[in-house]
């Protein structure tokens, strides 16, 4: 085998690896689009309803878990195109656990102020994506850091509009990440 053939084979290997990675990763975009809708609806409602928003959040969390379970079944279950490894299932469980943690903490501490609810959910979501990124794509970690920064800036700069700031910044970030996954093309 000469150098030219070897280079061509290396290029073919890279293209095949990239092709599959792109194909199976594309479905992740739907999870981010679902998150964008629930996130934005939740925080806009928090800004609008104030103290009563905690009940809306419990409902939205149930809807979110249900939608994600359906998407996982559609794309990554035995009927789908890919069976995810154990680490993927564990990350899904982490997000369910984080949601239960937020609901319990909110109820036990009696959090009702929109600002408190926003801080709790946004900071936990940031932590969840940071943890997800530690075993998956670094993009998830960047998203986690972005959520922390947006929450901090909103809290310090415009505390009375914190839910709205978090709704817009997080919603746009989820939407952008989701679309970037769905529009991924093979190299």
């Amino acid at each position, binding site marked *: *085998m*000469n*150098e030219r*053939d*070897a*280079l061509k*084979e*290396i290029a*073919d*290997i*890279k293209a*095949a*690896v*990239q*092709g*599959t*990675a792109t*194909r*199976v990763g594309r479905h992740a975009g739907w999870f981010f689009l679902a998150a964008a809708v629930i996130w934005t609806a939740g925080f806009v409602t928090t800004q609008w309803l104030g103290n009563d928003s905690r009940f809306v959040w419990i409902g939205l969390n149930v809807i979110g878990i249900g939608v994600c379970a359906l998407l996982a079944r559609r794309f990554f279950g*035995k*009927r*789908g*195109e*890919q*069976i*995810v*490894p*154990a*680490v*993927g299932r564990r990350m899904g469980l982490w997000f369910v656990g984080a949601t239960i943690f937020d609901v319990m903490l909110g109820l036990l501490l009696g959090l009702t102020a929109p600002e408190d609810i926003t801080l709790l959910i946004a900071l936990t979501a940031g932590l969840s994506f940071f943890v997800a990124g530690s075993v998956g794509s670094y993009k998830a970690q960047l998203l986690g850091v972005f959520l922390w920064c947006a929450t901090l800036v909103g809290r310090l700069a415009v505390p009375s509009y914190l839910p709205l700031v978090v709704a817009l910044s997080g919603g746009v970030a989820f939407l952008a990440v989701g679309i970037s996954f769905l529009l991924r093309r093979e190299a």
Partner: protein
Amino acid sequence: MNDDTLLIHQPTRLKIMAALAALEDGAKVDFMLLADELELTKGNLGAHLAKLEEARLVKVEKAFVNRKPKTWLSLTSRGREVLLGYIRELERVVRGKG
């Protein structure tokens, strides 16, 4: 070149191995997805997979989902090692040490 290296030296089998190498450990892909991704007919992919499975480089699992047959594919740890060894060989050739 040993038998495993000769087996994956064939372009289509090399692409199959590389495509499966993109999956994380423990993940599996549907046969139809791979056929579509690599633009291979079912018969062609099946024939190459049979050889790779026989050499224990690829794992083929069959199941019925809603009474329809479904085939899942993944790279074995041995398959991953063979592919990495082959890539190292290619890199040696490129560096002029082949």
